[in-house]
């Protein structure tokens, strides 16, 4: 782009000596590059070649060419374009519908030659401003680019450090693994005698319980109407063995092939059905939907970030997340299954007597071994996590030269009139009301999302908190070159789709030889 632009400037430079003389030699609105097609006095062929017209029909305020090329200086053609030279600034094409519409579009005022609009020539002023801003940007780019080189160096060192650390941790992992294995043996050795002692104790108790249960069965059997009628049985669908509808045949099967049974016969029947028979008085078992375990989303990764002493809220946030985890665990309830039922039975039948001292000693010893083993295992897991994190960080896409690595584990804030916005690059974006209220997740790290030729110019954060009747919140972060690393603005151009502007030296490109650019401009 800049190339072409300079080309134009140079052309203008060459012409600037006799600008007025050159201008009159081409019809209004024609760029120099097309000047040769408009030859005074000679028939004009539409640029699309569709027809040829006398030259006096060029710019005669009537559209003859389908492509609009016969009216470069009037508004007659719906698809025409008008060229303003804008000496002192940048030449431009405007749609010919903007000629003489009373609105000044060209800074050299040439588009309003017959509308009475009082346009001022602002090209020089604009040119000056643009040069200033170009200069400023070039300076920023220059400094930013230097900083970027440092960042690249730091990233390189950081990467090496991490690789070294990874090696260390991998070694310590080996030690831990050995320790775990040793403790496992200790544990298993202690658990064997514990198990045997407990089984002995349990068996004694089971024998006693069997007696009690027999007594109870007898009692319950008489409770049930001895002359049970088929119809009644049918109403107990829990007796349906194959769950395809409780049929008479099935019921008869249970009743031993007869419709009615007397007390004696019922004893056999009862033993068939008692486990399934559900007293009508008892409430039906509540089905508790098994809640899905929380997906290991990238949120968990926050633990991997070392706490940043500069940002005190970080700690708070981690705490919050821990709370979240706890809450989730708390929410998870195992469905009430047989054990509960058994426990209830146990209650009916009395409680198991306490272990004797000898058994208890064995249990205590085994517990100690278990604890030690668990402890070692936990330590191993932590090391595993550490390794994973390191590996991840080492392999993360921090840009072509890892220049964005310094943003990892950092957070940047911007306070607006209503909210505090917070960008933690490669992690998440959030928004918190300035005057209290809970934080909203505007998206977690998704991907680099710039255009193909400049993919590192934009970041995308996705899957934030859901919106009412809308999508999940998401944020696009636009990176621009700057000396500082700072969030410069946030907006919500569309509901729940945020846009954040972020300056960082890491995106700075080497400025084109600044001196030559300025030199050209100054000569204008």
């Amino acid at each position, binding site marked *: 782009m800049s190339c072409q632009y300079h080309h134009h400037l140079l052309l203008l430079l060459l012409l600037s000596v006799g600008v007025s003389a050159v201008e009159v030699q081409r019809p209004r609105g024609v760029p120099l590059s097309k000047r040769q097609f408009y030859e005074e006095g000679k028939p004009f062929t539409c640029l699309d070649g569709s027809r040829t017209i006398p030259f006096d029909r060029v710019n005669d305020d009537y559209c003859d060419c389908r492509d609009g090329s016969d009216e470069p200086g009037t508004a007659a053609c*719906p698809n025409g374009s008008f060229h303003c030279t804008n000496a002192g600034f940048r030449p431009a094409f405007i749609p010919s519908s903007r000629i003489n519409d009373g*609105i000044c579009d060209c800074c050299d005022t040439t588009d309003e030659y017959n509308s009475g609009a009082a346009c001022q020539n602002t090209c020089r002023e604009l040119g000056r401003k643009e040069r200033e801003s170009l200069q400023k940007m070039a300076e920023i780019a220059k400094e930013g680019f230097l900083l970027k080189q440092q960042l690249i160096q730091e990233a390189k060192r950081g990467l090496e450090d991490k690789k070294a650390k990874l090696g260390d941790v991998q070694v310590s992992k080996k030690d831990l693994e050995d320790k775990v294995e040793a403790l496992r043996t200790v544990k298993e050795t202690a658990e064997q005698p514990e198990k045997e002692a407990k089984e002995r104790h349990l068996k004694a108790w089971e024998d006693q319980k069997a007696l009690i249960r027999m007594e109870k069965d007898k009692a319950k059997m008489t409770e049930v109407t001895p002359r049970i009628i088929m119809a009644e049985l049918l109403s107990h669908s829990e007796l349906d063995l194959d769950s395809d509808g409780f049929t008479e045949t099935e019921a008869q099967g249970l009743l031993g092939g007869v419709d009615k049974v007397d007390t004696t016969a019922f004893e056999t029947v009862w033993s068939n059905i008692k486990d399934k028979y559900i007293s009508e008085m008892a409430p039906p078992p509540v089905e508790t939907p098994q809640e899905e375990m929380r997906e290991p989303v990238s949120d968990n990764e926050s633990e991997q970030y070392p706490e940043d002493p500069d940002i005190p809220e970080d700690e708070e946030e981690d705490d919050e997340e821990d709370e979240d985890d706890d809450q989730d665990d708390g929410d998870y309830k195992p469905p009430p299954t047989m054990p509960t039922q058994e426990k209830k039975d146990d209650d009916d039948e009395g409680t198991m007597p306490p272990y004797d001292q000898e058994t208890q000693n064995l249990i205590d010893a085994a517990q100690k071994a278990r604890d030690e083993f668990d402890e070692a295992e936990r330590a191993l897991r932590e090391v595993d996590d550490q390794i994973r994190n390191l590996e991840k960080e080492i392999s993360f896409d921090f840009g072509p030269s890892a220049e964005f690595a310094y943003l990892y584990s950092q957070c940047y804030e911007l306070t607006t009139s209503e909210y505090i916005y917070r960008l933690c690059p490669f992690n998440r974006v959030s928004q918190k009301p300035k005057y209290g209220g809970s934080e909203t997740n505007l998206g977690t790290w998704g991907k680099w999302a710039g255009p193909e030729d400049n993919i590192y110019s934009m970041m995308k954060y996705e899957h934030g908190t859901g919106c*009412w009747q*809308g*999508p999940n919140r998401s944020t696009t972060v636009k990176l621009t070159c700057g000396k500082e690393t700072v969030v410069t603005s946030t*907006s919500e*151009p569309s*509901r729940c789709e945020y846009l954040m502007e972020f300056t960082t030296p890491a995106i700075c490109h080497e400025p084109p030889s600044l001196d030559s650019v300025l030199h050209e401009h100054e000569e204008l």
Partner: protein
Amino acid sequence: MAPVLLLWLAVCLSGTWAVDRGNFKTCDQSAFCKRQRALKPGESPYRALLETMELTNTRLTLQLINDNNKVRLLLELYRLQGNITRVKINELKPLKPRYEVPDVLIREPPTEPLSLLSQDENGVVLSLGAESQRVIVSARPFRLDIMEGREVLMSLNSRGLLAFEHLRMRKDTQADPEAEKKEEADPANQAEAAKEEEEKVEDVMWEETFKSHSDSKPNGPSAVSLDFSLPGVEHVYGIPEHADTLRLKTTDNGDPYRLYNLDVFQYELYNPMALYGAVPVMLAHNAQRTTGIFWLNAAETWVDISSNTAGKTVFGKMLDYVQGSSETPQTDVRWISESGIIDVFIMLGPTPNDVFSQYASLTGTQSFPPLASLGYHQCRWNYNDQEDVQSVDAGFDEHDIPYDFIWLDIEHTDGKRYFTWDPHKFATPKEMLQGLMDKKRKMVAIVDPHIKVDSNYKIHNEIRSRGFYIKNKDGGDYEGWCWPGSAGYPDFTRADMRAWWASMFAYDQYEGSMENLYTWNDMNEPSVFNGPEVTMHKDAMHGAWEHRDVHNLYGFYVQMATAEGLIQRSGGVERPFVLTRAFFAGSQRFGAVWTGDNAAEWDHLKISIPMCLSLGLVGISFCGADVGGFFKSPSTELLVRWYQTGAYQPFFRAHAHLDTPRREPWLFGPENTALIREAVRQRYTFMPYWYQQFYLAHRTGQPVMRPLWVEYPQDPATFALDDEFLIGRDLLVHPVTEEGARGVTAYLPGKDEVWFDIHTFQKHNGAQNLYIPVTMSSIPVFQRGGSIIPRKMRVRRSSSCMEHDPYTLYVALNPQRTAEGELYIDDGHTFNYEKKEFIHRRLSFANNVLSSVNLAPDAQFTTGSWIERIVILGASKPSKVTLKAADGQESQIEFEFDASMSVLTLRKPGMNSGADWTVTLQ
């Protein structure tokens, strides 16, 4: 039963987007409707007391007596100028005055003499003047028949459904201690009650509840009802606003059409539920005649329609015809209102245009909008801040799409305090408006009628201190919940309140406003989030009147006061532009309406046509639907099709809900941007025609967007068409409203007529169903052979930028090789046209001569616009074309002839648009 249940379940489960019907009353849940609808046709208890008849030059009065309760009514009958008969029925001696709707009629309608033709003990016959029209008053039972010759045009109370609940004292038999106290305190009450004949007392007569809301009905039952029979009529139209077909359906198997202005969240289509506005006007049409009924009552109203041919199949009807055994088709209509009086205007046509001018003579015509307001409007809830406005504005330029107005919804205010600006997001509104003005563009900001109760808010304090708020039944200021939270509702029925409100639009009152800022009145049903049916309690008080009496007028008055404010701020010079959601008969005088909160669904696109057609039939021409659909997010195809449709509807505005993704026209890829650009540009090329049509509507009351039957009243094939429409007489539009459409079938009306495709200039014969293959760029539009349409082909970034541009005349020849059209030009924004500052010319083509003659020789206006091109469709090739200017100068005009389509294009004739000239083809 089972399938029904399943269906119901399916609707419930999938119906997250449907209206919550439970929030709105059915007829059965509206006590008076249920009570009145329970009356069955039969012998009317009402008898005309002929001996009480008084006939003056201008009116006939007569007492009616209800033989059941002996309550007397007073019937007034007027013959009004322009073939209108007015029938008024009130109690002869009501306990207290009953509400008569003010301010809707533009004046007391001028009368014509009535004369007595004959009289006996059974009735009287009066002459209605012209056309051998008579009205027959039958005494027992009371009934009115309007005849022309031997033909009955309309009968009133022919089914005996006249019912007039007289005001009465409460005689409560129930042990309601409070009521008893009241009765004790008022001995006259008991005496009065004793006099009255026993009537069935229902609980709901004196109090009724709906959901958690109770309506204390201190005046008790007060409903009025009357039936109308329309012999020979099978098609009735009007009574907007309903999301239903153009042709009204019979209501025998469901609820009547309801007229009660309501803020309906996510309304459902094809049903008779009430919506935001109400115009109690119905048109009846058959191949011979068009008539209208205007039921002037602003209370909750229900309209029942039945027909003796409804449900008959086409075959059944044919059989009747062949066998000659058919009874005459007849439509019966019944109006039921909760309070007020019966005041009905019977407009006797006989042509559709006669009915339009008859109705216009009563309630006025469409206000003449500023030209720019016929351009494209870009709206969204919300443009977030000034930068957002600026970047959207720049987006239109970048993508070369014209627009005239950008809109700000409620979020632009400081905490939903209307007439204010958010201090952060819109800190310098004048700067923003100036930026738009520099581009010759304009803005609309919303001003709703609910006023935040906040002692730091100037508007609230003023209204409260002046006592301008509507009062609750206990006399305190009525407060309801709306956007700002707790809100008061100014009593717009008060003229002094309206005058004060109008004064708030003065530039020094409305801070940050400028002359290119216009106004949008939303939520003016009024919407009360925590009120019954999301509106105001009926027992709230407007001075002496209950909200019950005035409900449907509230939005009408809000827009009236706002439009007046915009006129006054310019010293009466500039035309206002005000958009309203709620409306009533006469609202056409104040601005534009839109069809409220629609949804981004294909059916909503389709329904925009009958909804606006129905409004046009009852005077409200400036109608549009939110392009793209308000709720939900349209598919790209739907959005493009909606732009294409909206570009050919009167009010052309895109709008979107806060929670939907952005949808400015350039956000859907270059191809779709180009399609939308093209649709909007087509709109702008037709701006001269739209403007001219609105001038015509303003002058005559004829709808701008009209059903085909209005122009082809004798062609039954047009009577139920509502997937295509006409703009004026000369443009026929059949938008593509089907997803994935490969073609549409348009009915081109008019035997011996021809229609020209405006894009290809291909000629098609009339009176045929034409299949038109379509692509995504197709907008099937046809110009009628015999018409001349002026267009401006130089589309610029706003209509104001095109003011001085030249015209292209499209002359479409009919088989007789003639054509006619008009050209209207004025300054586009002031009332100076009323001072005869305009150009109005007749363009006609006959005998190979096209001429422009002055239609308004007493008018004065100069324009720089000239005629740049004349395109004659259906022409043959001339050898020479000569222009003769006003001064007699003759010159040759160059031309091109396209033999394949028979299109003759005259190149740059160049005469001034306001001049006399002729162009001769030889």
